[in-house]
């Protein structure tokens, strides 16, 4: 048995060298000045009006995106879990397959679709319908986020729903609950672990993206991800960038902590 434990050795080594120590480095850089002295200035930089605004906007858009994903994904997962083609590999396939088209390209394609004279508007004007004009606005960013992250909401919820004990639903019906009551009192609470991991997997990337805002925001919308990216890549200021990353990390962990409070200690992780 002891020797079997050693098999986790490479992983242990790997996670210490490439997960733990690098995070520690961020803390180090984030809390020091270029000359090596300790400072809280980098982290405090988040309080400048521009950065606060970027952070606030990131939170807002990520929240919106998560909400929309949840609203879209839950019924979808329900339909899929009840469908006769409940061959889970097929379902998973439908949602994984788009990933084989590069994510930047897929996002970029929305430009072509959403532009003033883009595909959608051409189509709408053909039908004599009003044009939609959301490209280069936060709405387009939310759309791009929803598009990119929807699968990460659908799959965990779907996985929980297909494993749900059918007799539990029957029992609720049997005890007098109509379909709405059954959904609210049984199906929804039972699927919470899936919802939680879905929220995590959508909220975190949405909160921290810089690519989607870059591609669909027309450079007019600055998210916290953009700020950090620019600090590292253009400003080349690693101390400031690490400080901001640190704040972002704490923010994300805190948000997830709040979400997880609603998860009554049930183990999630059902991707």
């Amino acid at each position, binding site marked *: 048995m002891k020797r079997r434990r050693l098999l986790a050795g490479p992983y242990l080594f790997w996670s210490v060298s490439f997960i733990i120590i690098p995070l520690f480095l961020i803390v180090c850089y984030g809390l020091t000045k270029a000359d090596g002295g300790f400072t809280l200035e980098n982290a405090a930089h988040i309080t400048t009006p521009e950065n606060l605004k970027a952070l606030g906007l990131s939170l807002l858009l990520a929240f919106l995106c998560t909400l929309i994903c949840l609203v879209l994904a839950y019924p979808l997962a329900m339909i899929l879990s009840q469908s006769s083609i409940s061959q889970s590999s097929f379902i998973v396939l439908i949602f994984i397959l788009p990933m084989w088209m590069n994510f930047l390209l897929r996002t970029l394609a929305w430009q072509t679709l959403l532009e003033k004279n883009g595909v959608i508007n051409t189509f709408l004007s053909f039908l004599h319908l009003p044009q939609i004009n959301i490209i280069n606005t936060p709405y387009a960013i939310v759309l791009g986020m929803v598009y990119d992250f929807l699968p990460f909401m659908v799959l965990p919820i779907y996985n929980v729903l297909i494993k749900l004990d059918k007799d539990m639903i029957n029992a609720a019906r*049997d*005890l007098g609950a109509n379909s709405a*009551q059954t959904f609210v009192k049984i199906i929804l609470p039972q699927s919470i672990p899936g919802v939680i991991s879905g929220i995590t997997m959508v909220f975190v990337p949405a909160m921290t993206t810089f690519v989607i805002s870059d591609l669909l925001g027309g450079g007019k919308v600055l998210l916290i991800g953009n700020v950090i990216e620019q600090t590292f890549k253009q400003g080349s200021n690693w101390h400031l960038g690490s400080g901001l990353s640190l704040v972002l990390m704490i923010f994300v962990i805190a948000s997830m902590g709040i979400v997880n409070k609603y998860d009554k200690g049930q183990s999630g992780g059902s991707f």
Partner: protein
Amino acid sequence: MSNKLIDLVHISKTYGTNTVLDNLDLYIRENEFLTLLGPSGCGKTTTLRIIGGFETPDSGQVIFDGKDITALPPNKRQLNTVFQRYALFSHMNIAENIAFGLKIKNKTKKYIDDKIRYALKLVNLDGYENRMPDSLSGGQQQRIAIARAIVNEPKVLLLDEPLGALDLKLRQDMQYELIRLKNELGITFVYVTHDQEEALTMSDTIVVMNQGYIQQIGTPETIYNEPENAFVADFIGDSNILSGIMLKDRLVNILGTPFQCVDEGFGTNTPVDVVIRPEDVNLVKPEDGMIRGIVTHLIFKGVHYEMEVMANNYEWLVHSTDMFPVGTEVGIRVVPFDIQIMNKPISEDEEAVNIEA
């Protein structure tokens, strides 16, 4: 007994090409403990699910208390189910589980609290209100499932192999509990099981099913002592099932030897099936027997010895408190009353006799 509470009329149900129930008719009386008994795939669970409203029959009607409830969803039916795997709501504690149906019916808090206490006492689990289902043993979970169902004061309680997942000792304890509950509550129980002993112990009426057809309906005693056909005889307890020829009323030829019996009306020289329970085979001295045989196997079973006796080219199964060592020559006697005569089925379909018709 009292009047019909549930009446199943010409029920058929098919899954794909597999016919599970074929034109089934059955009624259940008020306050009776009725057991649907049969091997897996015989249609007993489907019958129960149709009564519970979880399945809709392809044709036929479900009449409850004189009203047609065939199309009524489960939540509108005055009956409750105890599921095979308990189906407790794992995100609610015991009290919340039991209160589920009552809350939906908007009962007062006091009423609900009283009911919870009453139900927990009834199933001997007082004080478990705040436990979570996962922390209970299988038997305890099953009792909670029962408590959750009965607090709604259903007219009928449907139980789908509720003891199937429990070990032997617990199962026997629960059998007595169920009988006690039934007597205390005075409601109708419809019970599904494949365990013949369970059925014999608890039921007022047993319905033996096979391949979607009812084979026999009767009290445990009738089912055991007077099986209507070879399937029932074979399924309920151990039996010696032999081919015989009904020579005339009250005389049957078994393995070349004429035996006295009590059955009449089979005509003369009719091929029949003969059932003799192992405990009804009496072993005597060779010269006193109707036929002679040699003991080939002997096992001590506690209450009795189980022996196999080779006589007239048939291996007789015998239960007896007297012991005869292997190799002993013995005589076999059967009293006329213990010989049960049945018609031979003419075809496969005929094996499924419809009693009600």
